[in-house]
């Protein structure tokens, strides 16, 4: 029936729909029917979502390619090598040696399709939620225009067919993040947070673009298809020394560190919570911050050649996970707890990605597990954030957990959805977070049993287990502090706090159900892993047997964390108070984010201030003076010509007369030479 509709058409439809919605709001919706600005966006995101499902079904051949022995690896690869592509137009073309060809090309394979599914589904639900949450805000159309622009940029980032195009949209999502963090730009803290996020991300982007340059000088192309579809070329470069891959990988990883808020650039993400809560759920939990994970996963063919780079990835991931978990223990701001937990979970994903440093045969599994954790995390973190938003909505924008408690009765819907997300995040058995986290722990366990780098990965595994205990504890600390205990409302909430209206409740239910079930549906059945294995460029891999030891340990840790939280915050709050006073210093350090934020903002900023002053001096007294010189030159010409134009009729007449005489003389001379007619 839909023969005329090729999967290739879907490729451009996915980003085009949100872009159109954004343009519509900017041109028309900004002026008329402002309170209905969410409608085009929700419609466009629904179109994108349906198109993503269609793409996901079509991008992978329907039947499993035959893995028979006689075909061998080559045949299997040829089968797998089918990325959908469509070129929009030729962007950059330079006839040099080698020729620079940068088309705007959309390319989708299994990995992109899964990312798109995640991005469009979460953004659709968040947009519906936001239509209730943002109601009555004076910037209502602006909010939805920014959201649509973000989804467009994110889809383009995922669909980009070469590094440069990816970089462009990498910056575009950063811009949208800036716009949305600073959505309430009249609030000084929001404006500062937006600026901080932007500047910290620049550091990462600098590494990313250097990595792209290095890819160019090494391979002479930036096209994903050519780069990753050609294992022979990569092997040839690798045979001359793997240092170049270490460099490329680490530079690209610097980009990922910035975008995915890893140590030491994670300081921007907690501050980014100044933005509206749907933005925190969409951009700073589910989608944009996972772009770094996506980048590293996408560049796996580079990373596999450099165990050193992968160990650094795992090390940074572990450091981040631990630091963020320790910081989250003592935060009082509900959203900041969730923000640090996001940072910590992203650290988990990088640990998984780095696990392949123990052996190349783990590479595909590492990518699969990292991407799977990202997938489940998107859903349960989105539901947590949206529930936090719902709490904020009913508490009159108060988010400090010390000022409200016992909301279980007042906000039943929010309570249950938050509980779903919290259980999934804590890794309670059989829920989403359990499956994905367990897979990460399993691969780290496998990596720690290898002879080469076993010791290193044992430390990583230990950190991961500790972080998983802390995760369960701080998640349920927040849960118990918010929803249990005596019923207490801040005065901003008014007398009768109201639960989520339908526009907010429905997305909460859907996401809550997804948080509970999606991990179990897609994880242990290998649905996700088998699908992702179709990604071109990933080496063949076998399934990892379920690691019962790790499952058992992580379940015990999760339940222990929840139990301790229950003990501290419900059973006998005195314990936590005593602990807090006896460990005052530790509490303070944890609350301040281990001083890293202080280090980042004070020491680095003030250290760089003299340099900034020099730059400003140079700009004002050198660059500006040069520019002013160019402005001065026309004035000089004017001064030369000015005396002629004195405004007196007679002087003009004299000039005319002189001209006339000159003409006359020349005519008469010509006549004299030609002779009388």
């Amino acid at each position: 029936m839909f023969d005329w509709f090729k999967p290739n058409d879907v490729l451009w439809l996915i980003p085009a729909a949100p872009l159109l919605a954004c343009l519509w709001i900017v041109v028309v919706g900004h002026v008329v029917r402002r309170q209905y600005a969410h409608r085009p966006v929700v419609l466009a995101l629904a179109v994108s979502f349906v198109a993503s499902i269609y793409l996901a079904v079509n991008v992978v051949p329907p039947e499993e390619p035959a893995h028979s022995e006689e075909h061998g690896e080559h045949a299997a690869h040829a089968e797998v090598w089918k990325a959908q592509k469509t070129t929009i137009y030729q962007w950059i073309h330079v006839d040099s040696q080698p020729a620079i060809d940068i088309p705007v090309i959309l390319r989708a394979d299994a990995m992109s399709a899964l990312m798109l599914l995640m991005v469009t589904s979460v953004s659709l639900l968040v947009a519906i939620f936001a239509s209730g949450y943002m109601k009555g805000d004076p910037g209502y159309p602006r909010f939805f225009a920014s959201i649509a622009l973000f989804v467009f940029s994110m889809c383009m980032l995922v669909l980009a067919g070469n590094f440069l195009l990816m970089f462009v949209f990498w910056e575009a999502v950063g811009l949208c993040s800036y716009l949305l963090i600073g959505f309430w730009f009249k609030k000084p803290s929001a404006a500062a947070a937006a600026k901080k996020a932007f500047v910290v991300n620049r550091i990462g982007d600098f590494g990313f673009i250097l990595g792209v340059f290095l890819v160019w000088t090494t391979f002479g192309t930036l096209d994903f298809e050519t780069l990753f579809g050609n294992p022979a070329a990569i092997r040839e470069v690798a045979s001359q020394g793997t240092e170049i891959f270490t460099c490329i990988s680490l530079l690209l990883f610097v980009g990922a560190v910035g975008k995915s808020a890893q140590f030491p650039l994670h300081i921007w993400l907690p501050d980014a919570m100044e933005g509206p809560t749907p933005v925190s759920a969409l951009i700073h939990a589910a989608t944009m911050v996972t772009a770094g994970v996506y980048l590293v996963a996408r560049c796996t063919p580079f990373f596999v050649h450099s165990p050193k780079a992968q160990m650094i990835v795992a090390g940074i991931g572990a450091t981040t996970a631990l630091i963020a978990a320790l910081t989250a223990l003592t935060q009082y701001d509900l959203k900041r707890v969730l923000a640090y937990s996001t940072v910590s979970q992203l650290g988990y994903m990088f640990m998984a990605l780095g696990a392949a440093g123990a052996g190349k045969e783990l590479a595909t599994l590492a990518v699969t597990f990292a991407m799977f954790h990202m997938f489940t995390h998107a859903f349960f973190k989105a539901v947590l954030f949206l529930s936090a938003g719902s709490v904020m909505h009913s508490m009159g924008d108060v988010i400090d957990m010390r000022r409200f408690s016992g909301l279980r009765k007042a906000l039943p819907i929010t309570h249950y959805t938050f509980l779903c997300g919290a259980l999934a995040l804590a890794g309670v058995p059989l829920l989403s977070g359990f499956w994905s986290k367990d897979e990460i722990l399993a691969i780290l366990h496998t990596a720690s049993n290898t002879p080469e780098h076993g010791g290193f990965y044992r430390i990583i595994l230990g950190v991961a287990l500790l972080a998983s205990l802390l995760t369960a504890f701080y998640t349920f600390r927040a849960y118990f502090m918010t929803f249990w205990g005596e019923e207490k409302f801040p005065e901003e909430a008014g007398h009768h706090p109201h639960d989520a209206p339908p526009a907010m409740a429905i997305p909460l239910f859907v996401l809550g159900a997804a948080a509970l079930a999606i991990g179990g549906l897609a994880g242990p059945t290998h649905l996700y892993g088998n699908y992702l294995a179709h990604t071109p460029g990933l080496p063949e891999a076998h399934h990892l047997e379920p690691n019962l030891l790790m499952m058992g340990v992580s379940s015990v840790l999760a339940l222990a964390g929840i139990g301790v939280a229950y003990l501290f915050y419900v059973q006998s709050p005195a314990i936590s108070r005593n602990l807090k006073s006896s460990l005052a210093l530790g509490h303070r350090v944890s609350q301040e984010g281990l001083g890293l934020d202080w280090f980042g903002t004070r020491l680095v900023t003030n250290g760089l201030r003299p340099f900034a002053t020099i730059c400003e001096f140079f700009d004002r007294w050198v660059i500006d003076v040069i520019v002013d010189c160019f402005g001065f030159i026309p004035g000089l010409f004017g001064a030369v010509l000015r005396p002629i134009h004195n405004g007196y009729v007679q002087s003009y007449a004299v000039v005319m007369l002189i001209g006339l005489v000159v003409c006359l003389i020349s005519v008469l001379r010509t006549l004299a030479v030609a002779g009388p007619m």
Partner: protein
Amino acid sequence: MTASSLESQLVVGAILFALGMIGFLTRRNLILIVLSTELMLHGVSLNLTAFGRYHGNPQGQVFTIFVLTIAACEAGLALSLILTLYQRRKSLDVFLWSNLGEDDLPILSGQSTVPQTKLADPNADLPHLTPAGRAPKTPSTKT
């Protein structure tokens, strides 16, 4: 018509043109400037009639009639413009109209060597004719 009579007519035309030109370049009075241009115009018209006569065809004279017509229109136009200018400054001095820039910008050139114009006092009594003849009868005057 002989060449010598053509020559003397051309000489008269040239003298008229030169006089007009000198007047145009030296006068500051707007009306005299217009008169000088008329003088130049008619110097040229004289050339036209002289050559027309010399060649024995009417074209020169036809041209002259057109020139006269246009000169009449132009004079009316010029005088009306002069009247407007006079009403704005109460003076016929052309140098009052030499400022090219906006009024609020500094003057960067000109003016310094030119003697200042003496403006007529707008409140001064206008000259008036001596009354002559009988006063007209009006209903208000008793006879």
